[in-house]
């Protein structure tokens, strides 16, 4: 189930350029002392082949739901304050930000741990796919298979 948005977090998919400053301002609070951010952007090559551009697609409703799950888990695991997790979709040029994460906390250790956990988990579990365009064609990037339950629990409640 999609957890409700709490803690005044920003969790979203965007088709326009991401504005990091806006997100940093959003998570910044007078009670905190530390913000750690992760900015993932488009590299100019992949496996030594020059990249032209990327195209990101998502299973959008499920992706947002998984991103909210990450946010909920971060608040449970770490003493953090506000969060922003934003992923861009569509065509992205070299140097453009595809994902931006900002975490504020009273102390820096929690902010570092939470920010890193967020991007590591996002890359493993959020249904987003990247197609890489080169001079001589396009390929879907290698990725990670998300962990899934191996068997369905027997007695499912009727929904």
């Amino acid at each position: 189930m999609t957890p409700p948005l709490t803690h005044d977090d920003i969790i979203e998919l965007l088709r326009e350029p991401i504005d990091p400053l806006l997100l940093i301002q959003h998570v910044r609070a007078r009670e905190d002392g530390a913000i750690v951010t992760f900015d993932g952007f488009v590299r100019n090559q992949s496996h030594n082949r020059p990249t032209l551009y990327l195209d990101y697609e998502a299973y959008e409703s499920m992706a947002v739901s998984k991103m909210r799950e990450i946010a909920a888990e971060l608040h449970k695991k770490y003493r953090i304050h506000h969060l922003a997790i934003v992923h861009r979709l569509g065509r992205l040029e070299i140097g453009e930000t595809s994902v931006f994460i900002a975490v504020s906390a009273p102390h820096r250790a929690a902010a570092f741990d939470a920010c890193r956990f967020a991007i590591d988990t996002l890359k493993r579990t959020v249904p987003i796919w990247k197609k890489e365009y080169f001079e001589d064609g396009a390929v879907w990037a290698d990725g990670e298979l998300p962990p899934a339950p191996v068997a369905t629990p027997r007695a499912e409640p009727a929904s």
Partner: protein
Amino acid sequence: MPPVSQTVRVKVLFFGRLKDVVGQSEESLDLHDASTIEQLFALYSQRIPELAKYRSSVVASHNQEFASWDAPLRSGDEVAFLPPVSGG
């Protein structure tokens, strides 16, 4: 009395390279025999034999949760077949 044959209508989605293989990203399907996600995938693999070779590198979702392949389907369910994710 013969057993009641029930029609189960599900929404099926394909993403990434699976969408390219199947040639479409989404369809609504009336199932007569298939009753699990595994059987639903097998149905598509009959239609598009190339799909079968992706089976081991696909994860399924059931109503937007990662699901096991033995999950039983009900009318109105949404099933998606997802290749390895590469966001970030």
